[in-house]
């Protein structure tokens, strides 16, 4: 029985980090699409649908939060679970993110890949509450 692989979109501008994330997610059994910036991520979301979006916060041109805001405008992804990777965990008002944008988790860098996988699995299970 072929398990329906959850489709994850990874948006990360750092090539090395993107690589290790994708490696781990694939090993965990997800179908991974990787893009290098927010614009490309939105393009991908318009064209296809994903079960979860994982994004870095600090990216040039469009931050992870801006990506999430834009994502919520797309009808297909209004309730797609969203996980934010960020180096500035302390400054982010996570409560607001959760309430207004339906961000499931804000994961600080550096992070443990196994922890990341666990977060993804939890987010997929719980779904998006927005």
């Amino acid at each position: 029985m072929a398990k329906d692989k959850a489709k994850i979109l990874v948006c990360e501008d750092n090539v090395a980090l993107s690589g290790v994330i994708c490696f781990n997610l694939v090993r965990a059994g997800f179908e991974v699409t990787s893009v290098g910036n927010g614009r490309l991520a939105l393009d991908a979301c318009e064209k296809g649908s994903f079960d979860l979006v994982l994004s870095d916060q600090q990216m040039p041109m469009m931050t992870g939060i801006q990506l999430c805001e834009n994502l919520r405008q797309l009808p297909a992804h209004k309730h797609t679970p969203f996980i934010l990777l960020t180096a500035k965990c302390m400054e982010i008002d996570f409560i607001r993110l959760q309430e207004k944008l339906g961000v499931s988790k804000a994961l600080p860098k550096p992070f443990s890949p196994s922890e990341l996988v666990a977060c993804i699995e939890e987010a997929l299970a719980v779904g998006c509450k927005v």
Partner: protein
Amino acid sequence: MFASKLQIRLPRRITAYFLLFGMAALLWLSVAVVYIAHSVSESRSESASLRSVGQAGDRFNLAYLRNKSADFQPLLLEIRAQSRADYCAVVADSGEYLVHTTSAYKGKPAGEQGNVTDRWGEVVELQFVDDDGKAVREYRIPLKPGGKSLGTLRLGFAQTSIWGYLATGAQFAPFALFGPACCMVAGAVLVNRMVRPVADIEHQLYQVATSPSVESCDLREVPGVGAAAMGWNRVIQQRSSAGESESLQRRIRKTVEQGRHSRLDTVLNSMPDGVATTDADGRLTYTNLPMAVLLGLPGAIQGGDGANDSEGVPLMTEQLTKKWNLPETDPLLAVENRDRTVVTELTKEENGQRRITRVARHPIYIGEGGGQESHVWTIRDVTQQKLAEEMRDQFVDTATHELRTPLANIKAYAETLALADVIDVEQQKQFLNTINSEATRLARFVDDLLSVSSMELGSLSLNKQVTDLRRMLNEVLAKIRPQVEEKRLAFEVALPEKMPEPEMDKDKIATVLVNLLGNAVKYTPDNGRVVFRVNITDKHIEVSVQDTGVGIAADELDKVFEKFYRSNDPRVQEQTGTGLGLALSQEVVRLHGGKITVESEINKGSTFTMTLPLG
């Protein structure tokens, strides 16, 4: 209400009373004198008369005894003369005149009218009014010469009535009364003069008593040297000098305030901040010059001389909306903030430049003489500050990112290697390499950070050593080549044949060159060109890095060496960077006694040239 009673002025009354009572006293005195004189003379004459009568009786008796039938008329005449009587007569017991000084009466019957008024022994005094209407006093003494009664001797004195006295006195009266009268008048004049100051004072006080406003009364000094005059004059002087000193004080206060105002004005106009005050309606009542400029007003509102007509004076908030895009939602406009301090920041675009001001409004607490002002405003141009803050924030963001990203990679790869089931050897090697390079990247960034700190503290030091320049340059080039190749840039290197071995801090200069080359590569799009040229002269080493990259705008050319400065060009913002590289490089080169210069044209490319002195 007092007016009706103040008909006759007091001093006149005093003088009048003085004269009146004086004259009355004088009169009474005159009357008394007259009466006393009269009585005294009366009693004197009485006693004289008595004596005379007694003597006359004796004399007559003697004369009779000597010669009974002699003519006694001469004797009576003598007696009369001596006793100063009016008449002298002898009346027989039978009642007719025996002898009378007035010979006509001889033989006639004597009248018996008259009342006995007194009696001394045998002498009797009678008083009556005779046929002529004269008041007479008669003294009678019985004559008994040789024991035989002959009759009575009568000595008559006309009574001088008081009127008689007065008549006699009247001759002397003018003279007698002249003296006292003169004294009285003199006294009255003196009294009047003494009383005059009091009169003047009283007159003025009458004005005070009856006028509606005490201040408006024109009170003057009175002449005189008495206590009342001097006291009054002093009061008047003080009143006028108090008034004068009060108006003087007022003038002084005004001048001082004006002086203070103008000094304050000078001070306020010399501040960089704008200061203004508004009244309760929010209309400007004062602005210093910088504020007028900031608000775009035609001139500063610095009146104090005459109120500005409030129609022409703008509302502060209107002005701010016009010139500084005050948003409707700004707390300055909220009614509940009227009595609170409000600080807000306003932004506007001017000639392509962003300008930010901080506006603070404080309520003024009306103390003494608070006047119209109800709020004081200060405006400060915080553009520079904001820019600096923003740059710093941006730096912190970048720093955090630059520190955490390599760490994230290191951790992720390491954990993956440790926990993953099967990874082929090639991939393992790849992961380990990544860990390595990320660690190196992190180390470099940490070095940069530390260098910046040193720079800030002024403790950046050089480790100068004799350096193999060629070797160092080759190392630098080797480091940069991978990046160049990755972007497929054309890379030209021009090194001279002979290279000196100068004294320099090899590592730091290498860092500088790596920075310059790294920038060239970073900011040059794919398929561009980078040229690295080294030129040795007698005195200097010149190293230039030229690229065909995005270039630097003319107005940013002198800013690129500033700490944390990152160009606003989006193509630059796209790349990660801390804004520290050039600042550090410049400092290092400066410490070597050299300099870094830049030439650039936007969209064409830049050339950075490092010059180091030799020797």
